[in-house]
């Protein structure tokens, strides 16, 4: 047995172990991308680097054998900095979209590709649940949304974007028309009460997600009826009030209390609310200068000053969301903000630190040239954008919705949730644009019936090459070229199908990124 210390923790492991194995035995997480357990180490990714005995060079933990008395440093800032650089270098040549561009530009981060897969296969209820995870008022927004998602759609420049907004509206309308609208499950009551001032899109959205967490919500509004700007600012021809009412009804059915005709300040002071409720959310829409002063809130150039991380104002326990923070004409921003506030208030009430700063880590491929788009286009139906037969106001029929949803190219990475590179990048706080180079051309190999290969996402770890060799493929894969141009390829320029006759599934399963994925993974 060999005893060594890793970050001052003493670890005893059997002789012949690697530092990585020792660290794992001690419960110390060292990230890896190219490691294949049970095989001879072949380090290439170098994100498992550690400092050994205070040396000036770092060693790959996966290939460094333990030695008695060894001192290993795995979490110091300088070690993490080199690991982060390794990840940032890999990201500098990583071409793809973690999330679809539609999802990336949507302020509410609607999981559009998943919704599209569900609509395309007729799973309308499931599609609605997907939508409502991000948007509390989809039928409403489906009528007034600025359709930012469609501007991001990769088909936009080709034959028109997929009708994301109309499809979202379709699933919401279909749900409301069913007579049994979806009501999300709510956690058991936490006994915590939240006062929400303003029942516009931000306030309603916050209530919808707070209620699901088990917190009680009271919506105060200066008007008699809930809806805020949606009711009092949007023309009825654009947004029929029965649609708005139906969506608000769901929130009230979930247990929200509404108190109209209450103006905060005159009848009810902010201090009173702070005393009576565990948290207060300001969702009033833009405030006047006078109102800030009266409430005692610090302000910024745009509105109420909030801590971006916690969404709290200068008053403890008072949060703010929507136009009261930054004025926006888009209800979708207010809806997104309300959801974020619900999350922040949830953390506050539970007494935990905010989980994450801002958005999830994602890389974006950016604009593609028309010829680069061609392989993408093969992933969706070839039909042009469909116009609802009954006119835009009527929306899609179920059959039309399915057809239109099949146009989605599914640009999002099939491994978005399981990609090791993305996971490590997020944990190390990597900046994907720190090193910029000339962008490589987008390519995708769809010649194989079981797997799909995107060279732009390959990190040249060689895992697929090794697995193909282990499984005795006749042609298999080899690493072609050297240096920056190194990449896996099938010998004699044959197709991927010829190279991977039996090992395709195993190779895809072991790929640490979304470079080699099972076709079935893509829905």
């Amino acid at each position, binding site marked *: 047995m060999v005893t060594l210390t890793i970050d001052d923790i003493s670890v005893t492991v059997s002789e012949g172990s690697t530092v990585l194995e020792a660290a794992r035995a001690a419960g110390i997480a060292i990230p890896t991308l190219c490691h294949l357990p049970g095989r001879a180490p072949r380090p290439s990714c170098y994100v498992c680097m550690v400092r050994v005995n205070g040396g000036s060079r*770092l060693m790959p933990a996966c290939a460094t054998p333990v030695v008695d008395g060894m001192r290993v440093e795995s979490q110091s800032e300088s070690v993490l900095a080199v690991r982060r650089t390794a990840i940032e270098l890999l990201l500098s040549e990583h071409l793809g979209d973690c999330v679809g561009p539609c999802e990336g530009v949507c302020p509410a981060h609607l999981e559009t590709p998943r919704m599209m897969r569900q609509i395309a296969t007729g799973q309308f209820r499931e599609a609605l649940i997907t939508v409502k995870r991000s948007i509390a008022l989809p039928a409403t927004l489906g009528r007034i949304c600025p359709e930012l998602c469609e501007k991001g759609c990769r088909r936009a420049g080709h034959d028109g974007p997929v009708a994301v907004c109309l499809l979202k509206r379709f699933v919401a309308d279909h749900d409301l028309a069913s007579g049994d609208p979806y009501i999300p499950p709510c956690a058991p009551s936490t006994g915590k009460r939240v006062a929400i001032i303003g029942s516009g899109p931000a306030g309603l959205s916050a209530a919808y997600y707070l209620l699901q967490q088990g917190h009680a919500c009271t919506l105060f509004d200066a008007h008699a009826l809930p809806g805020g700007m949606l009711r009092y600012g949007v023309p009825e021809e654009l947004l029929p009030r029965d649609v708005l009412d139906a969506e608000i009804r769901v929130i009230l059915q979930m247990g929200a209390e509404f108190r109209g005709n209450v103006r905060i300040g005159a009848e009810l002071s902010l201090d009173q609310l702070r005393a009576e409720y565990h948290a207060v959310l300001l969702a009033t829409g833009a405030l006047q200068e006078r109102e800030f002063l009266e409430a005692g809130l610090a302000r910024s150039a745009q509105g109420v000053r909030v801590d971006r991380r916690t969404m709290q104002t200068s008053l403890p326990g008072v949060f703010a969301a929507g136009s009261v923070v930054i004025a926006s004409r888009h209800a979708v921003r207010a809806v997104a903000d309300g959801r974020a506030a619900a999350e922040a208030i949830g953390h506050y009430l539970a007494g935990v630190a905010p989980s994450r700063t801002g958005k999830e880590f994602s890389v974006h491929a950016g604009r593609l040239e028309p010829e680069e788009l061609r392989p993408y286009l093969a992933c969706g139906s070839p039909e042009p954008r469909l116009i609802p037969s009954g006119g835009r106001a009527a929306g899609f029929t179920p059959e039309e919705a399915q057809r239109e949803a099949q146009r989605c190219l599914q640009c999002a990475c099939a491994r978005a949730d399981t990609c090791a590179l993305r996971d490590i990048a997020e944990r190390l706080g990597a900046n994907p644009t720190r*090193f910029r180079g000339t962008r490589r051309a987008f390519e995708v190999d769809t010649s194989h019936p079981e797997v799909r290969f995107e060279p732009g996402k390959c990190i040249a770890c060689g895992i697929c090459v090794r697995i193909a060799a282990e499984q005795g493929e006749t042609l298999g894969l080899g690493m072609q070229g050297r240096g920056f141009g190194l990449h896996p390829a099938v010998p004699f320029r044959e197709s991927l199908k010829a190279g991977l006759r039996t090992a395709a599934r195993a190779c895809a399963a072991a790929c640490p990124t979304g470079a080699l994925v099972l076709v079935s993974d893509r829905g």
Partner: protein
Amino acid sequence: MITARGTNVTNGTGTCATDPLSPAAFVDARVAEQGSGPEQLIPLLQAIQERYRYLPEEALRRLCEVTGIRPADVLEVSTFYAQFRLQPVGEHLVHVCHGTACHVRGAQRVHDALVRCLRLRDGEDTDPEGQFTVQSVACLGCCSLAPVVQIDDALYGHLTPDCVTGALKDFLARQRRAHSEYVPDMPPAPSGQTEFRVILDSCCVAGGTRRVYEALQEAVRHTGARATVRPAGCTGLCHLIPMVEVVSPGREPVLYARVRPEEAERIVRQHGSPPGLAGRIRQIWTDVLDHLLTDATWEPVTRHTVDKRDPPVCAYLGPQRRIVTEHFGAIAPLEIDSYIARDGFVALRRCLEASDPEGVIREITEAGLRGRGGAGFPTGIKWAKVRAAHDPIRYVICNGDEGDPGAFMDRMLLESFPYRVLEGMAIAAFAVGAREGFLYIRAEYPQAVRNVQEAIRRCEARGLLGERILGTDFSLRLRVVQGAGAFVCGEETALIASIEGRRGTPRLRPPYPAEQGLWGHPTCINNVETYAAVPWILRHGAQAYAAIGTSTSKGTKVFSVTGRVVRGGLIEVPMGVTIRQIVEEICGGVPPGHTFKAVQIGGPSGGCLPAALADTPVDYEALQAAGAIMGSGGMVVLDDRDCMVDIARYFLEFTQKESCGQCTLCRVGTRRLLDILERLCQGKAHRDDLDRLEELAQQVRMGSLCGLGQTAPNPVLTTLRYFRDEYEAHLQGHCPAGRCAALVHYRVTDACFGCTRCAQVCPTGAIPLLPMRPHHVDDVLCTRCDACRAACPVQAITVE
């Protein structure tokens, strides 16, 4: 033999294996001759390429079939080494050397001129007629003739953009005249006869020496003179070639420098004729040494006799100390008797007679010999480790994969002193207990390969290698393995992988090759120069060797000094001399009118030392402290015309191309370092790019597996350390040396009188032809080829 499989391996497009002319039949024959083991993969690919000039797919498929080597391995190996080509090429291959010396002397302009002259289209390397294919090569090792281009086997040196057409025509003309490349072994000259010694190593050949050699032979035949013409080894006086040394009995040898073929007969008549006539024709010594570097043509221009006592030659040769190049100029490279007559194989004989391997190792250890490949590991300790191994199978390897651009001393030693290297290797093999060994030599050094192979054959014939050497029970079989164009193979574990027939990817050490090397057996691997020092040490004793040099760096070191020096060439100096002594005293300093700025030492792994640190001694530790490394001995002198950011960019371009691609930090990191340097050289860099450059350089150094990645940032880090002001200037869009093309502009001053010469030489039509009127340069069309400035008779063209 027709087999069902055999006839159908080529997707129906190829010919069947029974066709004696088919690639498949060729492969069958080669495999039958060479064997089919995995270590034969690279030699087989080399044979196929030699035959077809590229690797036809049919041949590769057949190779997999008959050897059982996996197609994936063929793919990996054939695309790793730069030598292999998977596409057909033109009738002749033009290799443009982009070594450091060539880069400094304008290789890119020569390359651009070739592209224009052959009308190559964007991204294509073969001319429309399929006659020439132009490719870049990392270094041809003929640095003193920079810039150099190799057309098939013919080398052309001292090229300028306007003489590339001439070189291509000359090549085609010479194609028609067949001539023998091989210089046969000759009996010693009868006593009393005059000997004309012509240096024929490959860079001298590039300088036109072969034609002089042939002309002398012809002249001897024609005049009936009683004289012999024979090849000699390198003298290191590269700035004086083509050189002929005339050795007549009872007289001082006479050295002719820069001889032209048409002058051969006069030389022969003078020295080959009866005494009395000698002295009638006096050659006039001129100041050619000082003008040599501005000489623009590759044809030698003037003839001179020089005396070894002439002041510049004295200055050049004086401070040198010859150990590995002992008897330079006197030993005919392949004449084994010429080596034996000068103490050759005495050391090996003594070792075998004394039969005390430990004693040999002790002697080498006490001499303080350190590895001359660059890192300076104590040779004795390495040998002792191999000797101490339990494994009875051991190997010796000579690392002749001299890849540093700007370095060519190993090529010179292998070409001019092959027996000395072999003797040193045999002694090492005896000391560590090895019976088999390999010399790994770059394929870019064909003459070195030929000379060593021939030297091995002749040694075996004399019982100096092979079975029962010198009648003892010590046997040693040595073989030459040719590299295939990968700088990283200079790294010992990568070199071993390459001999085993795999991609040259380094592996993590330990275990070191001394414990687990070739095929897992203990392996003693040393550099060419290290082995070449061994016979001298054993003949003169450890003390004599240790008396030379500094406290930690003993003996001598061979350097190739190139770039901006008056007297460039190969020198062997005792350790401890300063860089200033080398540059200013031995090599005559930078050309007049220019200021000495820096020395690049150690190639892509080394650094740039500023002139202010020129008093740094040649010593492993002192050089490292200054940020450079001893390296293998390439020294490129830079003056005020050279841009340090461009030099850093040049080296990163090199390492980036040569990275094996295994480690992320080297594979992508060197590319990103290069991106930033390219932005700097184009004036497009951002202020924070400098910090990013420095930080990334440090991290690439920390996080790479092998020496290539660990040292690749050195040129960046040392130039940042000593020449930060130049980086700052580039941020402002200004290149102080006027070297970075995007940042300089050609202008015509008022001095122009309308002679139109600039307009006539301009290759891109950037200067409209305006007889008798002032000319001007179109900045957009101008490619900064510098042809106009060189052509202007009144210096009316300036660079801003």
